[in-house]
């Protein structure tokens, strides 16, 4: 694995030797991954390569069988969703995990509603801060009191991102953010993700679309059969090379054989 050229920077999160199996299926087979602040790191790989399992472990939804997660100078065996959120890890899931029938502000503040008089939800403050946040992210919606079920895919994505930032997220994980999205909408969402990286967030993104990956990422990590097989700087590689690593055609014969017997 090539050590990255982010010298002088400390990784926001450091994963070491993460292993996870479901029954007899090995999903992750000793993955090492560092994610740096101010960078967009793309995680690519074929279906079943273990991308989703890896981000679920980072966000605390799944516990690894083996391995360590280091963060803020502390080492954890596993995280739980509340702990991950507290440590600043927010995930924008593929299904966005929005409560469709609730309005935009309620979704952005889900789980951290401000209170007044220690009992009443401070709706005015929620609306005001949601508007501010969405304006900063350049997400345009009709009103923060609209139920999210009436919004478009891009708008919903924007709201999910706003919620992540509102959870005081320092690292934001995106699972297939542009899946099932139109061209214009994808472009807007990608711009939003890129701008998060530029603002200093540690961004980890899973995508199948290499074109999107190349247009916004600083680093590309390739997962194959549960292993991190390559860690590129985006400017030092090209789509053909990445595809080669995704499919395994660039691998040495020995590793290739190993991989195919496993599959």
């Amino acid at each position: 694995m090539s050590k990255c050229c982010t010298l002088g920077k400390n990784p926001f999160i450091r994963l070491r030797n993460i292993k996870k199996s479901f029954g007899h299926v090995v999903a992750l087979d000793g993955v090492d991954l560092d994610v740096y602040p101010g960078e967009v790191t793309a995680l690519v790989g074929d279906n079943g390569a273990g991308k989703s399992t890896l981000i679920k472990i980072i966000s605390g939804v799944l516990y690894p069988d083996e391995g360590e997660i280091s963060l803020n100078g502390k080492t954890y065996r596993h995280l739980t969703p509340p702990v991950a959120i507290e440590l600043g890890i927010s995930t924008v899931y593929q299904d966005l995990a929005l409560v469709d029938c609730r309005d935009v502000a309620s979704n952005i503040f889900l789980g951290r509603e401000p209170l007044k008089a220690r009992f009443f939800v401070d709706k005015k403050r929620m609306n005001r801060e949601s508007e501010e946040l969405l304006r900063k992210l350049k997400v345009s919606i009709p009103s923060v009191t609209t139920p999210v079920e009436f919004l478009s895919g891009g708008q919903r994505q924007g709201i999910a991102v706003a919620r992540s930032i509102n959870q005081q997220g320092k690292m934001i994980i995106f699972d297939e953010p542009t899946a099932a999205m139109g061209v214009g909408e994808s472009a807007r969402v990608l711009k939003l993700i890129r701008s998060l990286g530029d603002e200093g967030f540690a961004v980890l993104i899973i995508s199948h679309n290499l074109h999107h990956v190349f247009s916004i990422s600083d680093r590309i990590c390739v997962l194959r059969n549960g292993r991190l097989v390559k860690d590129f700087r985006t400017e030092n590689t090209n789509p053909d090379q990445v595809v080669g690593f995704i499919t395994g055609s660039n691998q040495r014969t020995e590793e290739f054989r190993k991989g195919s017997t496993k599959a």
Partner: protein
Amino acid sequence: MQKYVQTDLTKIKLLTSHIFPQLLLILVMLIMVILLSVTSPFFLTWDNLRNIFDHSSLYIILALGMTFVISSGGIDLSVGAVAALSGVCMAAAMQGGLEAGLSILGGLIVGGLMGAANGSIISFLKINPFIVTLGVMSLSRGLALIITGGIPIYGFPRDFTWWGNGHIGPFNPPMLLAAFLTVLAAVVLNMSRFGYYTLALGGNEEALRRSGVSIHLYKIIVYILSGVAAALGGLVVTARLNTAEPLAGWMLEMDSIAAVVLGGTSMKGGKGSVAGTVTACLLLGMLRNGLVILSIPSYYQQLVIGIIILAAVIIAEVRSGKNLAFINK
């Protein structure tokens, strides 16, 4: 330009689809009031209206708890039986020499415990609420029969029967209890963090969990609320009749569910209306009262009430379905 026009239309449609069930209820209610007061001189008298409020108060108390449960995406079939069990427990405690206040408290705790049992099994073991509460329903009814030996307990101190037949000015305690709980429920559901989480549970439980909220805790509290509401219903029934019947509150769960759904709370969860529930309870109370005044045989009353519930639910559903289709275009 075009986008903004669309947005405005969406908003208007949104508003009407949200308020529509309530508007429909109020409309039906007005028509009924007019029809009944034209056909019977007794209908629009204070005594009769008081009667309606008095009778509806029991349904309102139970349906408020049910509003929370259904908003959270669940259902509670045990409320009628839990009401009976709580009433029986209060009666047995008083028979054993405990004073009224403590007996009532004990009965409410029993209701809360049954709710906690419902909520814990549903949440921790992830079993369908329909099945769990059906089991707890049978269990509670069985316990009530065992405690009483199947024979009603009657004759309670005045401190206790006051809760059914007392007077506070022109009102009686059940009415005021129902009114107080209505305000409380409306505030909690719409303005508290617990209310937000109740609706989020019904809308998308997984989203709430991923936001770091303990969904077990809130789910269990929802069912405890319903259990305590049922126990308060048990208090009202027992005090009113001065009798604790193990078979009291028969089918009360169905009346509560009907009122909640009629009031515009979505069976899918995520949307709940306290005002709608209370309006629906009053409407059903008025309907029962009207059918009696018009001396319609009781077999027909069941039939008429069933038809009206079906019609109202179907109309509301078709209406909101149309709205959604319109917006999605």
